[in-house]
């Protein structure tokens, strides 16, 4: 089974914090393949607002659709937009 993880990073290394990493590992340990999307790399203001002009929402939506995700988990509403919600096969939950 396959899971899209819409996370975020508020550090220079651009890696998930200790707790969201554990949740990703938790899903992996249950047997899910996990793809991590770093929502912080898509925003254009204050790390949480907007969408970078250089990034195509259509390309993102198309890519997600082709991955056939069984579900998606977002943290802090990262990448929660109509295009991503529609593109996930299964349900989307935002923590």
């Amino acid at each position, binding site marked *: 089974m396959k899971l899209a993880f819409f996370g975020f990073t508020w550090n220079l290394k651009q*890696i998930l914090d200790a707790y969201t*990493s554990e949740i990703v590992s938790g899903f*992996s340990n249950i047997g899910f393949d996990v793809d991590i*999307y770093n929502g912080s790399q898509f925003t254009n203001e204050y790390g949480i607002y907007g*969408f970078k002009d250089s*990034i195509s929402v259509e390309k993102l939506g198309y890519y997600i659709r082709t991955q056939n995700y069984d579900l998606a988990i977002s943290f802090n509403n990262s990448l929660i*937009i109509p295009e991503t919600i529609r593109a996930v096969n299964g*349900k989307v*939950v935002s923590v």
Partner: protein
Amino acid sequence: MDQIHHLFNHLSRDVLDPLKYDIDYVTMSSNIFGDLVREIPVIKDRIHLISPATNTDKNFDSDKYHNYDYEISWISSLLGDQTIEQNLYAITEHPEIYKVTQELIGEIERHGSLKLYREDPQQVIPNFARDAFGWTMDFYEMQLQNIITNRQRVEVVERLEPLGLSLFGNPAWRRLLSSNGKVFSALQPGPQIFDHALLKKIYDNSKISINLPQVHVPSDAIQYRVVDIMSSRSLLITKANKTSDLYRFFGSDCPVPTYDSLDEMEALCRHFLTHEEERRNLVAACNALVTEEFSFKQQCLSLLSFCEVSPPKLDTLSAQKPGRIQYINTDQFKY
């Protein structure tokens, strides 16, 4: 999510907008749960409250002669980035804005937020935050709350460093190394810790670990680190709050020692550093409360149930082959 203004919104500045989609939402704070149901009544059938989680595997024995590396440990970030510093610098260029900012910081020190101030029709909040910096008033309030949180955190270091505090911080603490000797003494060198196992190792080697929530964090919420420490060899000392989720998740008689003021925090640290048996008994009582129910695995299974995905049978989980984890390259989505 520890504060509603930390929520992403890719389409507008209204943080509530992304909560109006027909998906399920999960919060770890009863305050936020209540606030969202009030603000967006239709969300009530799609929102769930769960507790923070930890690794519940006990990686230590109960050896009472264990040698601790740290008397008191504190894993804490100094908040903000250059944004706060740059805008404080800009504020000093405008005496009238500087004066109002001082007033608003005082209000937050007294009440934790500008809620009462903003509801008072006699008070007029200037629009300078919006005009000068393009900030919403909510965002500006959060910046001011971060300033108060930072001041409290520095005070904690100054109080506890003489008791043997070891501070594990983010790089922002380095800004204080030249001006604050106690920060210099308490701060542990090395990179910021992103590995949960290392965080747990620090707690397991500390007699006491403290928790001081950020000013803007909903007052009832508990943080992941609270559950981490409660499941470790260390004694958690945290801020008092009779309606805290601590009691909702761990029972009304949860034995974690709490403080109302930094004076009390310091006194509790002094007490438990010299009353080892009492400290150890409380640690054992806290350990017993953090059952498998609070594990990351259980949290994942809860999230799966909200997604209506059937989890594998629990007794076969340990036999599952771990799935692949990969970061998706954002560059591929560029025009």
